[in-house]
C-alpha cells in the first residue's frame, strides 16, 4: 500500500478536479427525477396521437355507451337508477377511475421493462449522474402528469354529460389518479424485477385488471355480488377509488371512516409500490 499511497497524494490538479465534480453533482442530485420525467414526456410525444385519441375517445365512448345507452335500460327498470341517482351519475365516477387504471397499467409496465431490458436506457441514465431512485421517481412523475391530464379531460366530459351534480366533483380527478398510481406503482415494482418477458403483462391485464374492473363496483354496486365475492372489492384499488370518486361526484353516502380508509389505502399502496420499485431499481442497476 505504501508505494501506492505515496503516489496518490493529491496534487492541485486533483484538488480542482474534485472541487469541479462536487459542484457538478449538486444539480443532478437535486433535480435528477425531473430530468427523467422530462425525458419520458418527450418520449411520450412519439405516441401523442394515441394518447390524445384515447384521452378524448375513451370518455366519449364509455360515457355515451354506459351513461346514455345502458342507462336508458337501467333507469327505466330501476325507476331511480342506482343508489338513488341516474345510472349515468352512478357509473361516470367509476369510469374515470377505470380509465386511469388502464393507462397506469400501460405506463408502469412496458416502459419499465423497456428501460431495464429491451433497450436499457435506465443503465445509460445511471452512467450519467442519475441514481436508480431518481429514475423511478422520474417515471412516476411523468405518469402522474399523464394521469392528471387524462383525468381532467375525462372530468370535463363528465361535466358535459351532466354526470357531476356535486360541487366537489372535481375531486374525483384525485380519486382517479390515486387509483392509477395505487396499482401502477405496485406493477412498476414488479416490472423492475422482471428479467424476461413471457407475456406476464398480458396476463395481468386479462386476469387482473379486467376482472378488477368487472368486480369492483364499477358497473353495479359491490353489494349486488354474493358476499363471498366482496373481498375482491376490498382489496381492489379500483373499488376504493370508485367509492371515493362517488363520494365526491354525487355525495354517495358512506361512513366517514370508510372514506378515510379509501384515501389511506390508495395512498399507502402508491407509497409502498413506489418505495419497492426504487429499492429494486437501485439493486438492479448496481451490478
Amino acid at each position: 500500500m505504501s508505494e501506492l499511497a505515496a503516489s496518490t497524494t493529491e496534487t492541485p490538479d486533483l484538488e480542482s478536479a474534485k472541487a469541479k465534480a462536487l459542484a457538478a453533482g449538486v444539480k443532478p442530485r437535486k433535480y435528477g427525477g425531473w430530468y427523467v420525467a422530462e425525458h419520458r414526456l418527450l418520449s411520450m410525444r412519439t405516441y401523442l396521437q394515441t394518447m390524445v385519441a384515447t384521452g378524448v375517445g375513451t370518455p366519449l365512448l364509455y360515457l355515451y355507451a354506459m351513461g346514455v345507452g345502458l342507462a336508458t335500460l337501467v333507469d327505466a327498470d330501476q325507476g331511480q337508477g342506482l343508489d338513488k341517482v341516474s345510472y349515468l351519475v352512478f357509473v361516470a365516477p367509476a369510469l374515470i377511475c377505470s380509465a386511469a387504471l388502464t393507462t397506469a397499467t400501460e405506463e408502469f409496465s412496458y416502459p419499465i421493462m423497456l428501460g431495464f431490458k429491451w433497450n436499457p436506457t435506465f443503465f445509460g441514465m445511471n452512467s450519467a449522474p442519475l441514481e436508480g431512485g431518481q429514475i423511478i421517481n422520474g417515471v412516476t412523475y411523468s405518469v402522474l402528469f399523464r394521469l392528471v391530464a387524462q383525468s381532467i379531460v375525462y372530468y370535463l366530459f363528465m361535466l358535459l354529460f351532466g354526470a357531476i351534480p356535486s360541487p366537489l366533483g372535481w375531486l374525483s380527478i384525485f380519486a382517479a389518479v390515486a387509483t392509477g398510481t395505487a396499482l401502477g406503482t405496485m406493477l412498476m415494482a414488479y416490472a423492475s424485477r422482471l428479467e424476461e418477458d413471457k407475456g406476464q403483462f398480458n396476463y395481468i391485464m386479462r386476469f387482473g385488471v379486467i376482472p378488477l374492473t368487472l368486480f369492483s363496483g364499477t358497473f353495479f354496486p359491490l353489494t349486488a355480488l354474493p358476499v363471498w365475492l366482496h373481498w375482491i372489492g376490498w382489496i381492489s384499488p379500483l373499488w376504493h377509488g370508485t367509492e371515493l370518486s362517488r363520494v365526491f361526484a354525487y355525495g354517495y353516502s358512506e361512513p366517514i371512516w370508510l372514506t378515510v380508509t379509501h384515501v389511506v389505502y390508495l395512498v399507502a399502496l402508491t407509497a409502498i409500490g413506489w418505495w419497492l420499485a426504487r429499492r429494486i431499481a437501485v439493486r438492479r442497476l448496481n451490478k
Partner: protein
Amino acid sequence: MVVVSASKSPVVAAESLTKKYKDFAAVDGISFEIAQGESFGFLGPNGAGKSTTMRMVGAVSTRTSGSLSVVGLDPNNYGPEIRSQLGVVPQADNLDTELKVRDNLIVYGRYFGLSRSYLGPKADELLEFAQLKEKAKERIDDLSGGMKRRLTIARALINDPRILLLDEPTTGLDPQARHILWDRLFRLKEQGTTLILTTHYMDEAEQLCDRLVVIDKGKIMAEGSPAALIRKYSTREVLELRFGSEHNAAAAKKVEGLGERIEVLPDRVLIYSDNGEATLQKVTETGLNPITSLVRRSSLEDVFLRLTGRSLIE
C-alpha cells in the same frame, strides 16, 4: 502482485480492488493508477473482469473490498459527483429509440443539469464531430451500427468529460467503421481527454493505448506500453507455420529449439524468433514442408498467449 502506477497524479487509483458475486471473484484484488490525459487500456478475453472493473470505475457498481478513488472521490459516497465528470460508452448501445438523433444528445445532457440553451449548440458541435450532422433528425433505428457507436460516443462527450470510459468500443463493427471510430478517439486523446478502454482486440489496444494492463481471470498479469509488453514478453518476430491440423503437434517436435519459444495452436505452430526468415530457412532444412508460412511482427496477442497460455479470442 502487479501494482500499476501512473507517473503523473492519478485521476483513478485502485488498490486491491475486488468484486465478488457470491464466491466468484470477477475482479480479484487488482491495483492500478491512471494519470490525467493518459490513454489506458484493459486488455483481456471475454469474462476476464474488464467490464466489471469499468463499472466500478464508472461508479455504478459497488466494490466488494479494496479502495478506489476517481477524480479524488470514493464512488461509494460520491457516485453522481464522479459520474458528472465521466463520459461512458457502454458495450451495448442504449440510445433512446423513441427519440431522434439530436434529441438523444440533448436529453442526455439534461441529466448533468446542463441548460437547453447550452445543449443545443453543443449537440450540433458533437454531431459534426461524429460525422452525423445530416442525420440529426433521423430516427435511431435508421442509423447503421457504426453510426450508433459514433452517436453513443458523441453522447458521452456532452458534458465535456474529464475521463471517457469505453467498454469494447468497436466490437461488432466492420473495419471501416472501426477506423473512423479510432480516428475520433485519437482526436480526443490529442485534446487531452483521459481515455480508459477495455478491448479484446490487440490492434485496438496498440492503436489507442499509451499504457495497458493485461487482465485474465480477474487479475492483472502484466502492465506497460504495448511496445514494452511485446519487448518483454515476446520476440521481435513470429513465424507462423501450418502443417494441417493433424500434423501440427508432430511437426512442432521436429522444430524444437529453432526459436526462443514454440506455441502449438490447434490450427498452426508459432515459432518466436528475432529473425523469422532465418528461422523459416532452418525449418526447411529439417525437411519439413509447411502448407503455409508467414513471418510477422509480434503483437499483444502473443503477449497474452505467453502470459496465459490461451488466445485472446477463443
